């Protein structure tokens, strides 16, 4: 409907727009042009005309500004509404979304991972609650944003720890201890939201979210193992990551049903799983040496038999 209106205005308004070129605000390359423009640019309908005039660019995020006459940015007063942060500098849509989602997190315990939480978050930034329309209805972006934030925090934590060890201020932890602490630190970030976390997990498992959530999960596990000092360059690379991912997921599930004080049961579960994984390593070594011994035994037996039966005699 907006497109039809824009289309009809296109011819009539084109000259009008050209005349107003000097007054319009800077347009940023829209990520989801229609969503953003529909919600936040109520007051500036004419802006849709330049977008409609290049329809094929409406749905891409063009790398360069599509507008022919590129102007220096003016203040974006129409977006931030009343008071709030009237930033003089350029804020991309992504940064704005980040700010809204971060603000929305404090409303999650109350409203869950929903558009209401996002709307509340937007309101604290001085934006209209309709800003939640920028995002999907199911709260996917909020959850992904939260997970991404947690992973970044974990990375920073591990990096700090590594620096401490490098500077000699702390002792290097043994592997199982390191993994246990890293996973515990990461899972503790869920504690404030643990009530609503099952909802988040089920949303993350939706087909359209799986690529992103899988991506976040694998990069987090990769980070943890990197800082743990994993230097495998063979199939062990995959084995280790698979095992650690399994441990993380099961511990997360246990945590969601845990009602013990400060989640003691969860940390004990985690400790046991990591001990299991370490045991697996020892068992694997034992199997290897047993296999070797067996092989030697069989070879010896084969040689003995060929000697006894005279099969190795050359005629």
């Amino acid at each position: 409907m907006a497109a039809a209106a824009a289309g009809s205005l296109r011819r009539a308004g084109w000259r009008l727009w050209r005349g107003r070129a000097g007054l319009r605000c800077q347009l940023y390359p829209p990520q989801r042009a229609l969503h953003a423009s529909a919600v936040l640019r109520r007051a500036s309908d004419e802006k849709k005309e330049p977008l409609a005039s290049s329809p094929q660019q409406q749905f891409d995020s063009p790398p360069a500004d599509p507008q022919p006459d590129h102007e220096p940015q003016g203040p974006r007063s129409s977006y931030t509404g009343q008071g709030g942060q009237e930033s003089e500098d350029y804020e991309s849509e992504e940064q704005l979304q980040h700010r809204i989602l971060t603000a929305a997190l404090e409303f999650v315990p109350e409203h869950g991972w929903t558009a209401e939480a996002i709307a509340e978050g937007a309101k604290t930034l001085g934006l209209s609650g309709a800003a939640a329309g920028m995002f999907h209805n199911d709260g996917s972006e909020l959850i992904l944003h939260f997970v991404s934030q947690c992973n970044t925090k974990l990375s920073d934590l591990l990096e700090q720890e590594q620096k401490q060890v490098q500077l000699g201020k702390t002792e290097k932890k043994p592997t199982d201890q390191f993994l246990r602490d890293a996973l515990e630190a990461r899972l503790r970030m869920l504690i404030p939201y643990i009530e609503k976390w099952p909802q988040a997990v089920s949303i993350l498992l939706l087909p359209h979210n799986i690529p992103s959530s899988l991506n976040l999960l694998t990069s987090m596990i990769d980070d943890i193992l990197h800082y743990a000092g994993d230097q495998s360059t063979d199939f062990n690379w995959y084995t280790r990551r698979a095992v650690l991912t399994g441990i993380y997921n099961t511990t997360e599930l246990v945590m969601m049903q845990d009602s013990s004080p400060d989640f003691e049961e969860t940390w004990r579960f985690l400790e046991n799983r990591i001990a299991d994984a370490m045991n697996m390593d020892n068992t694997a070594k034992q199997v290897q040496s047993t296999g070797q011994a067996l092989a030697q035994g069989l070879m010896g037996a084969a040689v003995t038999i060929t000697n006894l039966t005279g099969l190795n005699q050359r005629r």
Partner: protein
Amino acid sequence: MAAAAALAPALRRSLGRPRGGLGGVPRPWPASGGAPRLRSTAASLDGINRAVVDRIIRVDHAGEYGANRIYAGQMAVLGRSTAGPVIQQMWNQEKDHLKKFNELMIAYRVRPTVLLPFWNVAGFVLGAGSALLGKKGAMACTVAVEESISDHYNNQIRTLMEEDPEKYKELLQIIKQFRDDEREHHDIGLEHDAEGAPAYSVLKTVIQLGCKTAIFLSERI
């Protein structure tokens, strides 16, 4: 995990002593937790085209790993013949190449290809199979593989040069050096009468097709 651990010894027996891959028993955790590298001392990861470098290192690592296994297969059959020392020497150079790529893989945090266990077996089978055709067969296989690999390295050198010769200087140097080594192996193969092998042209075409497929898959998977 139990299945893998049980399968591993059987595979190891049949393959001799392969290093890593599925031939090695899967080890969940690093035994002593090697020193984690500080970002600043690792290869500088900023400003480089991660996607391109990722692919290059992954496929080269897989290639050297496969070449290693091919020579191992050839040595298993021809180790005690007159061609033994020549093959052993080429094998040693490939081992050095593999070591270098292991280091690069760790420095650039590149993941190895999932198909490593497969290349483990396929490489050995190719080496042993071509060696069963005789010395000339083994040399023909060497010529085919080394030609594929040097073309492949040349492509990579071209790609990196187009990107930014300055930024990728060490990587370019390494690849150039290795390309020269592989060319040398190719020439050694020809010297030892590779062209006299049975069905030389067919053999060469088939092997080179296999190499192209391996390169395509290892870059992506």
